[in-house]
């Protein structure tokens, strides 16, 4: 019995010590971000400068983030959704207004990325990164040049490529191959896309999220549909990879920083947004994650060799037929259903 008491005491004591360490009356900022989408070393820099501690959690898709915030019961001070999701969140009054006067570094953001249609005047969001969706492939394993989504339906490559585990992006690929708009609200077009994805499914190695880089590097997959920044991160380290922007068109996207309603540390959140807009921090992030910066000052620090590459800073004419997602409103339920059925099949 005595031993047990000692054991319990030790446990309680450890807990108390643990708790004491954690409760140094600090402001804790809850940041909710995509996996592998920030250089985590900057957290410590931010903490040293401001004394604000960062509590960090990640998601794999816009939908996962939306659901977690929407259902309530959570408190996040910052999140980084993509344009169509921001549009939806603004419509559903899920975001706090951002006070741009508290973000002096907002001046560094390129005018091209300010005041976009999903958030005119940047009332609710501050640009973070932008990019495209395309195909990355290993030239040692796939010898012919690729320029179209068609390869993802080619029997030759069965079991060698991965698709994204993100509903709008994957449905987008099928819609684009069919020549439709990726923002379609036509049910027949969506059904056609569904059939196409179901037909493709046996050939897909896996529907993946953040692990796609590892799978490419390890040779697990020879080809993958990815966001441009992931391609950039891989290509900058491994020469054998190539990223193509499919001719049928694809997704041009923008990820912005937002403050969800329910945030408790709104001031600290502004501070962190400003921190992220600083040229040097922007550079650390861009260098780490591989995505394309929206910051004119950061751009000056970036390796000029990246300009005019498909994966980092593509030429305008390459992406002129690229579309931007918009929020389909309640029609999203049809997208949900289509995606659930594709995955269940």
């Amino acid at each position, binding site marked *: *019995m005595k031993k047990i008491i000692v054991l319990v005491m030790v446990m309680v004591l450890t807990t108390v010590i643990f708790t004491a360490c954690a409760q140094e009356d600090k402001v804790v900022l809850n940041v909710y971000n995509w996996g592998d989408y920030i250089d985590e070393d900057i957290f410590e820099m931010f903490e040293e400068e401001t004394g604000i501690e960062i509590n960090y*959690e990640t998601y794999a898709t816009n939908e996962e983030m939306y659901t977690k915030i929407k259902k*309530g019961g*959570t*408190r*996040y001070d910052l999140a980084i959704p993509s344009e169509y999701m921001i549009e939806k969140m603004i419509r559903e009054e899920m975001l706090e207004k951002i006070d741009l006067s508290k973000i002096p570094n907002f001046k560094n953001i390129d005018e091209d990325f300010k005041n976009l249609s999903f958030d005119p005047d940047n009332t609710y969001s501050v640009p973070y990164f932008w990019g495209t969706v395309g195909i990355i492939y290993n030239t040692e394993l796939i010898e012919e040049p690729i320029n179209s989504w068609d390869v993802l339906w080619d029997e030759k490559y069965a079991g060698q490529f991965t698709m994204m585990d993100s509903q709008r992006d994957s449905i987008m690929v099928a819609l684009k191959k069919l020549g439709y708009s990726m923002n379609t609200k036509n049910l027949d077009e969506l059904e056609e896309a569904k059939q196409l994805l179901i037909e493709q499914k046996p050939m897909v190695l896996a529907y993946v*999220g*953040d692990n796609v880089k590892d799978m490419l590097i390890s040779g697990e997959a020879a080809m993958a549909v990815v966001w441009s920044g992931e391609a950039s991160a891989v290509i900058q380290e491994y020469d054998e990879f190539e990223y193509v922007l499919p001719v049928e068109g694809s997704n041009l996207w923008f990820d912005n920083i937002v403050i969800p309603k329910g945030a408790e540390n709104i001031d600290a959140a502004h501070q962190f947004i400003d921190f992220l807009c600083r040229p040097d921090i922007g550079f650390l992030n861009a260098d780490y994650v591989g995505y394309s910066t929206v910051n004119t000052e950061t751009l000056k620090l970036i390796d000029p060799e990246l300009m005019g590459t498909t994966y980092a800073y593509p030429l305008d004419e390459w992406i002129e037929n690229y579309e931007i997602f918009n929020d389909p409103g309640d029609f999203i339920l049809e997208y949900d259903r289509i995606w659930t059925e594709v995955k269940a099949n």
Partner: protein
Amino acid sequence: MVNKWVKRLYTLLIFTFLYAPIVVLIVFSFNDSKSTARWEGFTLDWYRSLFQNRYIMKSLYYTVLVAVISSISATLVGTFAAFGIFYMRTWKQKLVLNVNSIPLLNPDIVTGVSLMTLFVAMNMELGLMTMIIAHITFSVPYVVLSVLPKFKQMPGEMLEAAMDLGATPWYAFKNVIIPEIKPGIITGGLIAFTLSIDDFVISFFTTGSGVSNLSIAIYSMARRGIKPEINALSTLMFASVLILLLIINKRTKIEDI
């Protein structure tokens, strides 16, 4: 004779199956390369980067905190509950025990989503508090089930006897009953503790706002691919399990519970 060798071979094969993956993890946690395919020299780097990984360290803290709080609370609640249940009328006892067994029988995922639904409906902030509540909820039934049989083994009417001799109910409970049911309480508490340490599914659905336990941390890292830090973590966890089991085993022999 042949039979004996077949048996040995079979045992060996099964144990190889059980331990090979663990051995692989342990060996490659010392490998000086991100790859799990080639041996490129000995290193302790992964252990260093494991301890420098704030996300993992924080989850470790939450894991221990939740396990300690939830197992102590569950043991307290469960022990008193077993006491009450033991003296209940038969039909009521049956009813309570049936409800008690729901979390044992129900798939974890259903328990998880139903608790999440409740918390969200009650407008509670998903995080440490909700995770602790969830852990108490799934471990209390085990405590009840390990303490209750000890009451049944107790020589009849001990409580009454003590009280007839002038003990207050609380004194009788503390000095007469507790020693009788102690083994059950310990087992129950240990089960609650280990269940809590190990839980993934229910925590996954009932936490949020940046609070995660080790299982959730491992899951979100593993979803991103092979991470040598996880190998290092496995090795440490394997070592602690071994040590814990050795301690328990020794203690069991001494006190013969």
